[in-house]
């Protein structure tokens, strides 16, 4: 990673972590989700022996949902602010006047927004495993360490984060109001988690095949949004076309 990219990412984080919305996203929200996820697992543990197994599956599936939501929500505010914040402060032109290349600018913004979401979701998954091992039986802990879960956490989550970031940046580049860009981006990125949510309500545990299929589709969509967003992150486009 070159020094300009590192400098841009550092600046993005310095700015983002002074933003209340971002701070909430990276501290309180994961804690709330961790609480919900642990509660779901406790519910699954507390089910009476005569309860149908489907109830337990649904609870476990919904637990996973929280860890897919984190890389969706956390990068959203960082990505939106990374674009609208520059516009509001009129800081884009001085930034573009530096030797930073268009690709470095794009990559720096995307990575700075996506990395916290992914790292925090992984961190809280680790915490969740710790909490789960204290609260529930080993067989339930093993359920959340199964391949579908691991694929969801370590592959689908980063892909979801990249989707969120690129879509938010595409939307934010066309808007000047941070709040409006945030709201519109929130709606635009939701479809990516709907399949997981719907299948999670089915009467079976989420399968490896389903997660892999979802990851494959998101990867393809990511490719498209990355190409579109990268085209948008060109000096000329930014100065002449961005609103």
């Amino acid at each position, binding site marked *: 990673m070159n020094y*300009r990219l590192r*400098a*841009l990412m550092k*600046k993005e984080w310095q700015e983002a972590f*002074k933003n209340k919305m971002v701070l909430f996203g990276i501290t309180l929200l994961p804690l709330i989700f961790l609480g919900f996820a642990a509660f779901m697992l406790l519910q699954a543990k507390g089910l009476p022996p005569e309860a149908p197994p489907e109830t337990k599956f649904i609870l476990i599936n919904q637990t996973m949902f929280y860890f897919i939501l984190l890389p969706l929500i956390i990068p959203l505010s960082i990505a939106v602010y990374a674009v609208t914040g520059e516009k509001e402060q*009129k800081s884009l032109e001085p930034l573009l*006047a530096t*030797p930073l290349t268009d690709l470095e600018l794009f990559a720096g913004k995307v990575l700075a927004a996506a990395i916290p979401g992914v790292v925090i979701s992984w961190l809280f998954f680790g915490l969740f495993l710790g909490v789960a091992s204290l609260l529930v039986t080993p067989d339930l802990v093993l359920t959340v360490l199964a391949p579908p879960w691991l694929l969801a956490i370590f592959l689908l989550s980063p892909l979801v984060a990249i989707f969120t970031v690129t879509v938010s940046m595409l939307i934010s580049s066309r808007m000047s109001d941070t709040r409006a860009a945030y709201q519109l981006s929130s709606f635009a990125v939701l479809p990516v988690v709907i399949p997981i949510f719907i299948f999670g309500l089915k009467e079976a545990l989420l399968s490896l095949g389903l997660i892999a299929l979802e990851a494959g589709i998101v990867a393809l969509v990511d490719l498209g949004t990355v190409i579109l967003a990268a085209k948008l992150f060109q000096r*000329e486009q930014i100065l002449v076309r961005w609103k």
Partner: protein
Amino acid sequence: MIITEGLTRKFKDLVAVEGLDLEVEEGEVFGFLGPNGAGKTTTVRMLAALIAPTSGRAVVAGYQLGKENQKIREVVGVLTESPGLYGRLSAYQNLEFFARLYGVRARAGQVEKYLRMLDLWDRRDEPVGRFSKGLQQKVALARALIHEPRVLFLDEPTAGLDPEAAKLVRDFIEELAKEERRTIFLCTHNLSEAERLCDRIGLIKQRLIKVGTPEELKGELYGRRTVIQLKSLPPAVEAEIGRLPFVEGLQADGNKLILTLAQPESQNPLIVRRLVELGGEVQWVQKMEHTLEEVYLDLVKEGE
């Protein structure tokens, strides 16, 4: 240091800058004057390799625009009209970020140098969002200088500042120009600022209307004029003076004669002598001064 040939930029049907031919010498402070929408900012954006020209060519600090844009961005500094700082970051963090982007080696020392130079060292850790507009503009100026650029583009550096803040910024630019011998390309609306700071001035309104020193611009437009106030001005005296071969222009205004002369230093005594011979009673002889504002307004009108 800056050479442009036929530099043109169009935005769809709108011609922002047309056929700009310009040469700015190293160490020169070049003022770029023009009304709103005249193409000043577009020119700066092209020369700083931010947007591409539609046609024409330019060389900035020895690098060819279009082919060596990255190099150009490394050696120029740009101060935009609004400070464009990161309001949540401190003055130090703002400057340090840009020093990193430019790959400045002794970063801490360089940031400290400019913060001290602009009397901001004691406030280095405050978020710049809390600074007054004048202070923000000072930080922005330091940001444009942090990598010691060979060419500095200043786009309306004092616009929107109160007179005190504007003076601070202007004094600093003057200091830079005098002591550091940097090439400065200054876009401004402020004519007295241009007159005070610039070695030469270019007037633009899509096309370059005129280039010259402030004195040359005034002289070229109005010639060199002398005003002679007489006790009374009979028509015969006026006609006689108008017949003198070296008088290029003559205008009477009450008891005043306004003469356009090529060499007023040697021709004024001859005129005064002739007036006395004709019985005229000379009360005052004055050099007629024109402000840059008059020159600007007339030239811009002429360019329409």
